[in-house]
């Protein structure tokens, strides 16, 4: 119970893609995902997060398909993740309000499937931000100016790897002072331990919650008073 992805530290190539207010829909079109709902979420059981490297073959889907491919299906050479060395990027430098919208879990899963481990942005859509932790994609929130500076440095020398250290809460790159970041301590501890500590914390208070609900049933019987109950 309470399995949770683990994340301690990651080093990889960072790619700048700074479009603000990018909807989760443009990361993973929900239509494509739901056509395979059974395959992805039920019959297969676990969501495949390592799809691109499994047996050396690609079993997942690329994120940002609308940006990555032209209408005729060919790769768009202007899109950053289609260019070297960003093809192998595992850290995304994104724009403000990244991943906003309504179907963020698919977006997070796809980013993982195409190799992303970290997204650094000035702000995130709130649901996207939460879903990231559930699927082991680390969302790092930094001041817009700092993300700009990181993107400038990456642009100047794209091949130099960046390290994101969750244990020490810093982003590091050779030739640059470590950049500290803040993160919800519960989320951090869940990722570091690979255990959903927020669920454990809730279960710890289970008896109190149950007692409170029993009191509430007497105090506000009407909220438990749907037609289902009236029939009984």
């Amino acid at each position: 119970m309470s399995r949770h992805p683990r994340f301690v530290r990651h080093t990889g190539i960072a790619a700048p893609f700074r479009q603000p207010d990018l909807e989760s829909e443009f990361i993973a079109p929900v239509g494509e995902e739901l056509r395979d709902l059974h395959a992805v979420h039920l019959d297969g059981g676990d969501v495949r997060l390592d799809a691109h490297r499994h047996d050396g073959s690609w079993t997942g889907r690329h994120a940002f398909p609308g940006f990555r491919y032209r209408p005729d299906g060919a790769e768009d050479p202007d899109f950053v993740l289609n260019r070297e060395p960003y093809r192998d990027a595992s850290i995304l430098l994104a724009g403000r309000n990244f991943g906003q919208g309504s179907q963020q879990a698919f977006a997070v899963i796809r980013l993982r499937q195409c190799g992303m481990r970290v997204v650094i942005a000035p702000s995130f859509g709130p649901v996207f931000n939460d879903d990231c932790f559930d699927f082991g994609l680390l969302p790092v929130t930094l001041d817009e100016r700092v993300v700009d500076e990181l993107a400038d440095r990456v642009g100047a020398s794209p091949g130099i790897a960046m390290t994101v250290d969750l244990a020490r809460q810093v982003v590091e790159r050779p030739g640059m002072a470590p950049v500290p970041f803040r993160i919800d301590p519960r989320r951090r501890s869940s990722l570091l331990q690979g255990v959903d500590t927020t669920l454990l914390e809730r279960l710890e208070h289970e008896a109190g919650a149950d007692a409170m609900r029993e009191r509430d049933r007497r105090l506000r019987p009407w909220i438990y008073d749907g037609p289902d109950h009236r029939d009984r």
Partner: protein
Amino acid sequence: MNRRDFIRTSVGAGLLVSAYPRSLFARFRAQERRGTMFDKIWDAHVVANLGGETDLLQVDRCIGGSPTQVMRLVREGVELRNPEMFYNVPDHTVSTSPERYDDPSLGWGWQAYEELAGEMRDMGFTKAFGQSDPRFGIMHVVGPETGLSQPGMVLCAGDSHTCTHGAMGLISWGGENSENILRTGTVIRRRPRTMRVNIVGTPGPGIRAKDVILRTIAQLGTDSGTGYAVEYAGPVVRALSQEGRFSVCNLAVEMASPTGMVSPDDTTYEYLAGREFAPSARYWDQAVEFWRNLPTDDDAVFDREETVDMTGVEPQVTWGINPEHAIGIGERIPDPDDAPPSKRATYRQAIEYSRLTPGEPILGTPIDEVFIGSCVESRIGDLRAAAAIVEGRRVASTIASAWVVPGSNAVKAQAEAEGLDRIFRDAGFEWRESGCSKCYGSNGDYVEPGHRCVSNSNRNYIGRQGRDTNTILASTTTVAASAIAGSIADVRTFL
């Protein structure tokens, strides 16, 4: 001894009480709370303080627990709690085509949903409403309309516009993963600060709730609600219908507050009475008496107060790429060079994307598509108001697509009983089935690339309604008037 064991001892508990008196003491005084509505409801739901400003809260309603999620957890052997608190509608993914019931290629996965929802209902999760259920519709229309959303509740969901429900006088927010709520019936949440937005003045003709909230966001900014739960108050809000209050709270998240609220009053109770999941006659009086203690007390103190004056404000339309970019219908498209320095870059991007010309009037801007629907204004009162504008008129021949998408199957049935569908059809609109539709273009309903759409929805972000599309947000009646004119129109000339 670890921290949690320590606080279970009397010494530890004493320290905890002295450190966090507000949330703990309040629990023992359930009937005599004073303060803001937000504080009263929050305090009544605290199961435990988890340190600092973070509390464990009881959840009364959750929109979530989709069939796939419930099945997966059941398969894993997880014990699920309080199924009566959940409801689920696949509103984002259905097609709104009239052929959707017969053609499985329309929308995404609705057949699988119907199949799984049956299993889910057998497990006690009785409120899984598929597209053909009379209670189906947009989740934020369905909750209040079926009486599931009631004053004094804590309601969570994944969708960001969950703030809509706050108009019933409850605390709601989006961005919540329902899985752990399915397991525990509780949620961990940091207590936000409180802000009251007092909306005053005398709104002129043609002004609807949507204009009120667009004006509010334009004045206060898209970041103004960060970290706050917002209560909308003042005479203008008091005078709004319950449906109008939903429109106002719906856009709370567009000013970055996940929670918007309006204190409940007789308008609220009248709206709720008799709905399917509303308190039954047996409990009704007791419930109303309870709810009358919820509104913010006169001497309550908010962390922040703002005032918006609606006197002289014109119908609002957006010219840019976020809801803050709203101007009066008689105003001109702003010049990025004249914008405050912090906003200049966004203004430039907005002008570039929208292909509008700074200095030109927004009135008369040509449009290609028209959309009436969404969780903002797709309720029966909204459709009546739009029908009154278009009755006896025709959608301009230059409009490629003009859709009316009722917010729910119930709204659609009511509108048809009143003959509104015929008015829209006679005027040249397409009358659709209910769902989220073109508000965000990813269920098969979308605005064509390159088109400019005037829409009564809530987001005009880049690509929101489809790739390379440009959205102009406005009230339902301004959208209806613009459909007739073929360009952005002043609804006041249609009244």
